[in-house]
């Protein structure tokens, strides 16, 4: 099953590559990976989405935890959480009909049109990965997709609980 792991680690050169290296050397796949600093600039936070049963995820979390740079790792999947991914998509919008339908679909999904070219629209949607997939399906139905870029998932627990240093 799909898992979302959140990792707090030292914001130091090489720390990210240790994490990524660990995944590849132990043959765990990474579906998406996002990384950035936190409010504490000495710490980075990584969100990794991966696949695995409980046993695999237990090994992944233990192995990641064992890395000296890592402060904490949690599996967000089982607890109540919010996840978001950013999509930027350039779609064909060369005539009135597709312009209207792309605008309509973007509105329905709560996306934004960020830019227009003579023959294209660039749209943005920040949402769950599922919803982004549906949005892309709809866009594909209404128009031709020229270019897609996705940020990978970020996740955070719901309520007052926090992953902090």
């Amino acid at each position, binding site marked *: 099953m799909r898992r979302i792991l959140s990792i707090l*680690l*030292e914001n130091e*050169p*090489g720390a990210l*590559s*240790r994490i990524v*290296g*660990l995944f590849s*050397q132990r043959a765990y796949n990474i579906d998406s990976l996002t990384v950035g600093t936190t409010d504490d600039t000495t710490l980075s936070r990584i969100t990794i989405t991966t696949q695995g049963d409980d*046993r695999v995820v*237990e*090994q992944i979390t*233990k*192995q990641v*935890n*064992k*890395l*000296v*740079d*890592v*402060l904490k790792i949690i599996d967000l999947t089982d607890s109540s959480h919010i996840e978001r991914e950013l999509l930027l998509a350039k779609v064909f919008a060369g005539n009135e009909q597709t312009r209207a339908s792309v605008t309509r679909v973007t509105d329905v999904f709560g996306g934004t049109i960020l830019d227009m070219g003579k023959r294209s629209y660039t749209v943005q949607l920040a949402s769950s990965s599922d919803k982004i997939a549906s949005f892309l399906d709809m866009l594909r139905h209404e128009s031709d997709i020229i270019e897609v870029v996705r940020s990978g998932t970020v996740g955070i627990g719901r309520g007052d609980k926090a992953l902090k*240093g």
Partner: protein
Amino acid sequence: MNEQFNGSELVVKALTELDVDYIFGYPGGSVLDLYDALFAQDDIEHILVRHEQAATHMADGYARSTGKTGVVLATSGPGATNCVTGIATAYMDSIPMVVLSGQVPSNLIGDDAFQETDIVGCSRPIVKHSFNCRDAQQIPTVLAKAFYLASSGRPGPVVVELPKDILNPQLKYTYEMPARIDMRTYSPSSKGHSRQIKKAVDAILGAKRLVVYSGGGIILSNTSEQLTELVETLNAPITNTLMGLGGISGTHPNFVGMLGMHGSLEANKAMANADVILALGARFDDRVTNNVKKFCPDATIVHVDVDPTSISKTIQAHIPVVGSLETVLSQLQSAIEKSALRIDRAAQESWWQQITAWREQRCLAYDVQSNVIKPQTVIEKLYKVTQGNAYVSSDVGQHQMFAAQYYPFKNPRQWINSGGLGTMGFGLPAAMGVKVAYPDADVVCVTGDGSIQMNIQELSTCLQYGLNVKIVSLNNRSLGMVRQWQDMMYGGRHSSSYMESLPDFVALAESYGHVGIRVDHPDELDDALDRAFSITDRLVFLDIRVDENEHVYPMQIKLGAIDDMWLKKGVKA
């Protein structure tokens, strides 16, 4: 005004304060300033090797025999990459080691400069941690962290990369060593969870067929005495892994031998039939378990380890206990003494009767012939002539298994071998590291004609530093273990497993200034060993021509249960 030091002096001063007595290394352009600083002091002795791989194995042998952290110094680029096999060897066996690697000056890093490699990148999968030290002022702190990480928790190798510019003798700094190391991301567990300890004790005392299975962790954590006390309290049968030999004396009545691929029948049978297995500092390696799906189906597994990743990695533990063995063993001992539960002595007696019956099959018996030297005999005689007191390092192959099977190790740290990585070429330099630590002890390298040639250049280092190890080479003119597998699994097709053009090892040893002794016939063996061990001021190379057709038995049958074993050619247990 505080005294000022350059970067190289900071390294040396920090290493001295960190209690380093020996560095094993090889100079080169990027570390010449550091070598100049070493020249100017007497606290640390530098041992000049002939190949950096050997430096890592020497530091490793030094660490395994003393418990201290082994230290390696190599130059950037090829010096550093030559260390990789030794780092991986130490990583697999959790050996404390710090590898100081030179690096090209900071302004050239990333330019493919002369003798540049990204050694931190190259070694990343095989280190516990690594540091790019980019600021001379930070050298003492980085080294203190490196030594702390290498030796605490589950030990392991740490690489520290030192760019040439921070070692520059022109730039001076104050020396600031932190009073204590505080790393927010690193806090190895010590105490076992009290509820888990209780569960473990209930399982252990409730057992009818208990087996203690102990590994290299016992050696690394210096808990051999505690282990022995626990085993005696419980009167339990105990088996050691290859890495755990000497964790309890090899002649202890409760010791049922090594387990695993070439373990004893009684050890593997006991494991297979156990109802409770107490695993201590062992990691259920595939060379132990054989087919994990058939592994010890009736056993409740209590697994104690300082490293949580080892627990339930290959075999699901029913009662996991994370903690240092020193603490957990005393927790177990005191909880057992306080428990209201009592060992079922009647059940235990019948369990021991069963084990005795397995023992009586004498799985290590072998056919002795009069005209050819059996490798097993050599090890048995080695045990006699050294009275079981030698430090024995081995290379990797048949000779390694014979040494493990036929030399009962009395004490921890006496058996020095590359278990996890299985590194040929390890034996001689590792023995040299032991000899550096214990110049008066008998230090023996049990090797073969294949393995010894992987780092034979170190005979030169032995001469330079008077490292009078005994090399016992079980020369079978072939890569024995490869050949054995080819006999058993490849229809006897010996693809590239024989050694053509072997050197005259006696002449070779003599050309390096040592003593060489050739033994061709069983009748000569006793005298040769006596003579070798009577020579204490020279290295002795014993080139012993053994039976090339001998196989190591017992041997687990591939993909079977732990106790599915071949006892001899074509004979199953």
